[in-house]
């Protein structure tokens, strides 16, 4: 029988309509020593208003440099079952589809070797097994990998890529987000499991500019689907939206960022040449509008959290890339980028920070991309810029 802790503070968080993480921990704690101590420790944090976790040492499975987050408690004596309490990152499936069969198997393994606590999912997108002891790591890995599952990334490595639900269940996807995600994961297994980069590298793939995977905010490489043709308009459906109470002028036409739509109460017209493909009109009138023509993706680079120079968003590098299996163009581009980053990146410097530090020109030249206005929101303001000898020769 696991130890039972009094948790008056946490108990407060079992009240209310939203499902309670405390209830979850308690469920596990009822039969699992680690989960029980996790509960006790957490109650203590709630009382003292501070955490009791220490930096992780390097723990992991044989042959891999990542996939496990080492974690030790500073109250090992008081809570011995979480003295070491490491997280195992299982590489999730594309778009987080599962079968009941797999989930049950996963639970069996995890109940046996771990705390019985998980995150579905971590915010990078791993299936996170939350807390186990060092000695259980190899068994867990053997159980999962023998069933066809592998660890995700951690450390200065490629991280588990993730994507939106895309073509699996969304009418707007311009690319096969699930397959791209899978292909990238498989292609770069070595880069995932054996950290050799200056810092972490994340991929996220969204089927369109709605970006339901938040790729533009938190991926070193954001792949966002788009199209090159017109937006087809089904005027009958337009009329239906109007009839159902949509104020098309206010809700659609006036909100179009490029002001390229017009509506006279009857016909909705789009000046496609000036459309920036922002997705607003399509999202709000899904039955009436659709992007058509050639499909592909915009590749953006460099978003990340604030350290060290402030948060960044990804920025356009390739405005349009055809996305067809086996995605060689993408893979080659990525390898080129990594080559440059490996060469110049300082320890703990993300690729986006490196681009800011050394300038877009060096980066673009290295990866072999010509400058285009789409690379910038606006050209530079101050007339301070470099000329190479080659530039000077040009007429």
């Amino acid at each position, binding site marked *: 029988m696991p130890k039972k802790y009094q948790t008056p503070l946490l108990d407060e968080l079992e009240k209310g309509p939203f499902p309670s993480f405390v209830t979850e921990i308690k469920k596990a704690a009822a039969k699992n020593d680690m989960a029980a101590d996790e509960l006790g420790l957490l109650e203590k944090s709630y009382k003292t208003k501070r955490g009791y976790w220490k930096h992780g040492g390097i723990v992991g499975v044989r042959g891999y440099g990542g996939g496990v987050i080492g974690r030790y408690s500073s109250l090992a004596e008081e809570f011995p079952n979480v003295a070491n309490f490491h997280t195992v990152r299982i590489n999730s499936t594309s778009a987080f589809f599962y079968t009941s069969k797999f989930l049950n198997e996963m639970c069996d393994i995890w109940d046996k070797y771990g705390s019985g606590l998980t*995150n579905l999912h971590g915010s*990078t997108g791993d299936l996170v097994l939350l807390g186990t002891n060092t000695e259980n790591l*190899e068994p867990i890995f053997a159980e999962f990998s*023998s069933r*066809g599952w592998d660890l995700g990334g951690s450390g200065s490595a490629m991280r588990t890529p993730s994507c939106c639900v895309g073509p699996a269940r969304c009418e707007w996807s311009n690319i096969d987000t699930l397959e791209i995600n899978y292909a990238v994961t498989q292609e770069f297994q070595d880069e995932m*499991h054996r950290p050799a980069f200056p810092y972490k590298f994340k991929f996220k793939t969204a089927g369109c500019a709605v970006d339901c995977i*938040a790729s533009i*905010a938190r991926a070193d490489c954001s792949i966002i689907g788009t199209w090159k043709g017109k937006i087809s308009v089904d005027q009958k459906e337009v009329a239906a939206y109007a009839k159902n109470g949509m104020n098309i002028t206010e809700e659609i036409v006036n*909100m179009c960022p490029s002001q390229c739509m017009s509506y006279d109460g009857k016909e909705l017209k789009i000046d496609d040449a000036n459309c920036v493909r922002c997705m607003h009109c399509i999202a709000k009138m899904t039955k009436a509008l659709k992007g058509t023509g050639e499909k592909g993706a915009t590749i953006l680079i460099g978003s990340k959290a604030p350290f060290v120079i402030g948060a960044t968003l990804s920025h356009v590098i390739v405005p349009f890339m055809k996305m067809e299996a086996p995605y060689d163009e993408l893979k080659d581009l990525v390898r080129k980028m990594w080559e440059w980053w490996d060469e110049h990146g300082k320890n*703990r410097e993300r690729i986006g920070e490196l681009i800011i530090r050394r300038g877009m020109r060096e980066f673009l030249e290295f990866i072999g991309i010509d400058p285009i206005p789409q690379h910038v929101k606006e050209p530079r303001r101050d007339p301070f810029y470099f000329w190479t000898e080659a530039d000077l020769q040009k007429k």
Partner: protein
Amino acid sequence: MALPQRRTDIGPPHYKDFLPPVIQKNYGDWKYHEILNPGVMVHVSNKGEKIWTVRVASPRLLSTDTIREHAALAEKYCGGYIRYTTRHNVEFLVSDEKNIEPLLKDLKDKKYMVGGIGPRISNIVHTQGWVHCHSAACDASGLVKALMDEFADYFTTKSLPNKVRLAVACCTNMCGAVHCSDIALVGIHRKIPIVETDKIKNMCEVPSTIAACPTGAISPDPANKAVKIKEEKCMYCGNCFSVCPALPIADPVNDGVAIVVGGKVGSLRSDPKFSKLAIPYVPNNPPRWPEVTSAVKTILEAYIAGARKHERVGEWVERIGWESFFKATKLPFTFQHIDDFTIARETYRNSAAFKW
């Protein structure tokens, strides 16, 4: 009991093995969707086939018991197929219309919270907090629970001008999309780290500790093979502690939560935006952080009152101007709000046109 044979570098299984048959058949061929109610939508394919999605809130931190329950429900109503969303909700993928009502009833009986689809508050992207991270300045799961209880109606029934994306990160590493969320919380410190001089030489690498500091506050202390921190340059970000455990910064009295607003990631209507500081500090008051939930409520209500249909929080604020945001919310404007970091100058008001 012998362990099975381990394999390496195999990556995850192919997703095809996990897609319901109707999705396999209509993959990439969806025509439109309809939101039937806050918890149910249907996607219709060009072939006329349909898949219903029933969305359920999840605390994300799940016990195996609960996951087994998800699996059982999926088996009963969805041919065993289930998915989790990018915001950690559960989606039951129903191929047979008949199964929807029974599923909903079952969910209701089991006290699941159904909703989150459409212009609502969906689940809160968040992080580990005191549950598992050494770096946390606050908990994450507790804040999420407190907020989602407060705003449950906006998940299950009520609608908003547009989706409102909430996020919580327990430290400025920001393991979430806090920096681009409609309303988000981030754990912060307000005192400089304690320099455990004696431990540094064994535990830390001095150059990388120095490089970790965004403001250049750290300098070498060669006599002790340690480092010094220049008090007036430190803004308590804790990044030095991330690389050097001998610089602990957690402080029960001064740690707390900052609230940022107006970010977004989609490119619809307006470019993706960073969240901006609304409230520099709210105290850590577990278990339910009442000051935090009430501040978020203030902001949310001002948004509801002020925004036009389809406007996200940041779009609303930019239309009315930040001075109007502070007026509408009655939040105090402090020196902390004025940027003094890397791009500070770009945030100064370079115009004679503003509101009183």
